[in-house]
């Protein structure tokens, strides 16, 4: 029977010849991840089920949502998770990167089934794996058993063709798509990205696409692994699955990326997407470059090109959080961080705290933040009256210079 990549990976992991959308399967899990915000509840669930984790090399704990601890409450949760790491002899424990970037750089291979107690675990599917977000108790169950149940999702195919215009990036493409599909348009479904644009895209840009599958309600984002993926993975080979030509899709979207303009998502929901021209001139208080969506080297590079040798506007604070220590060091080596700091940026340690209002970059009453992150929900980054507007790294960098939202094409 013709199958999608998602069906094939889930069939393989559940030791079945084939599975179809709607089937319930129990799959072997390659890696289970939790971060400082979700691990404590996962550990509570786990400890009621088992004494030992199923494999201490396959349980990953990352402190990234509030590290180093900004409050006593945060420090207390860190103590709890750290004790678990020590007691269970967890080899994959990190405090120097965003959990998804750590998984991408060090663990995930094509064909893997990866679950994380973070909704943006759909990101890692860009490497040709089935990766999805779960809650803490689910992850606790996987820590104990190494298995997880899934309803095999129907798939949506997003066939992205053409070439983006200058000043338009993967973030603009996915924002535009989220606007078209809607916040619940892909509910429970696999979001499979294909087409020439995806083939030509860097691994970093593919990660940006898959990262926002959840913002359409998607279960996983997935892109077939190719030579580019294998080059990125170094020695990690995995098992490459590809969708059959006549596989069944719930729907197919044909998108010409050449028609996409720089985009913004306006509060309070991610599918409230408009071309940047709709808000050009709106003053901003904070610009944020980073997160699991856009904290990679190519994102920092495009921002640096815009900001090098210039100064950000006095009314703006610019925060930069590289997505991992490897990216931080690469940006340091290339002189990007020096240039950004010279331009007035605060470069912070590789975490994702500001995006979720837990660590640094908190917004005051009525403030406006233009961010490369993936969510703009009310109250997410601070005061509920503050506005979060989502955009590409180029739009964020150019707007930081101008002190107001601008079209990045005027600054390239």
């Amino acid at each position, binding site marked *: 029977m013709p199958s999608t990549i998602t069906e094939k990976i889930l069939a393989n992991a559940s030791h079945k010849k084939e599975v179809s959308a709607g089937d*319930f399967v129990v799959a072997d899990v390659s890696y289970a991840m939790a971060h400082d915000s979700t691990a404590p509840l996962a550990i509570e669930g786990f400890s009621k089920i088992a004494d030992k984790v199923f494999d201490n090399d396959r349980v990953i704990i990352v402190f990234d949502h509030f590290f180093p601890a900004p409050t006593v*409450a945060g420090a207390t949760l860190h103590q709890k998770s750290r004790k678990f790491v020590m007691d269970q002899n967890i080899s994959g424990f990190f405090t120097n990167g965003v959990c998804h970037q750590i998984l991408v750089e060090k663990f995930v291979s094509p064909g893997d089934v990866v679950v994380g107690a973070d*909704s943006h675990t759909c990101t890692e599917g860009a490497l040709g794996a089935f990766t999805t977000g*779960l*809650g803490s*108790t689910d992850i606790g*169950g996987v820590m104990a058993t190494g298995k997880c149940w899934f*309803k095999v999702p129907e798939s949506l195919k997003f066939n992205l063709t053409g070439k983006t215009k200058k000043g338009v990036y993967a973030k603009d493409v996915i924002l535009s798509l989220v606007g078209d599909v809607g916040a619940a348009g892909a509910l429970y479904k696999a979001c499979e990205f294909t087409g020439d644009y995806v083939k030509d895209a860097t691994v970093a840009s593919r990660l940006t696409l898959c990262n926002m599958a959840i913002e359409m*309600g998607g279960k996983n984002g997935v892109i077939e692994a190719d030579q580019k993926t294998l080059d990125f993975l170094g020695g990690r080979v995995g098992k490459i699955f590809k969708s059959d030509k006549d596989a069944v899709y719930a729907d197919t979207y044909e998108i010409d990326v050449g028609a996409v303009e720089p985009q913004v998502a306006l509060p309070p*929901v991610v599918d409230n997407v408009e071309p940047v021209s709709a808000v050009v001139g709106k003053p901003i208080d904070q610009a944020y470059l980073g997160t699991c969506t856009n904290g990679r080297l190519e994102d920092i590079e495009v921002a640096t090109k815009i900001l090098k040798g210039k100064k950000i506007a006095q009314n703006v604070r610019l925060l930069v959080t590289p997505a991992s220590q490897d990216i931080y060091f690469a940006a340091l080596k290339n002189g990007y961080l020096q240039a950004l700091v010279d331009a007035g940026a605060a470069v912070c340690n590789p975490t994702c705290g500001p995006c979720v209002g837990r660590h640094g970059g908190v917004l005051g009453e009525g403030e406006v933040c233009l961010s490369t992150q993936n969510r703009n929900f009310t109250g997410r980054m601070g005061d509920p009256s503050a506005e979060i507007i989502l955009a590409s790294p180029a739009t964020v960098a150019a707007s930081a210079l101008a002190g107001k939202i601008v079209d990045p094409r005027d600054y390239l």
Partner: protein
Amino acid sequence: MKVWKFGDDINTDVITPGRYTVTTDKKRLGEIAFIEYRPEFGKGVKEGDIIVAGNNFGCGSSREHSPVAIKAAGISAVIAKSFARIFFRNSINIGLPLFVSEDADKIDDGDEVEIDFKTGEISDKTKGIVLKVKPLPEFMQKIVDKGGLVEFLRSGGYDNV
């Protein structure tokens, strides 16, 4: 039981803002449910009350704090036209009853609704109507019947399915 009515796409930041969830204390989480979005909820919610919502309830983050907070606040069930999938799994795992009903639109804020948890029948006493409810898939019903994922896995779990 009194209904608290919500719209579409109610996200986890609205239910439990991230700045308030640096805790696993269930009582505290119960106090912060909808703290900024609908402050009167925390003041007025009574044990057994019901949340009724539109599409995609619980979208956004994977944080289990959201269903935990709703349950700890005293809510006995959530009825919605559809749920975001992680929120749905989380609720089943922690024993917060959820019902998917196309008829959620017909219920208004403040209505008196009765749920027979044995038969699954839901009736709006204010409107005098019985709601159509979509049954859970058999696999998920087994987890619910055990009282959540922890008990399901403790009692044989995947060997029984």
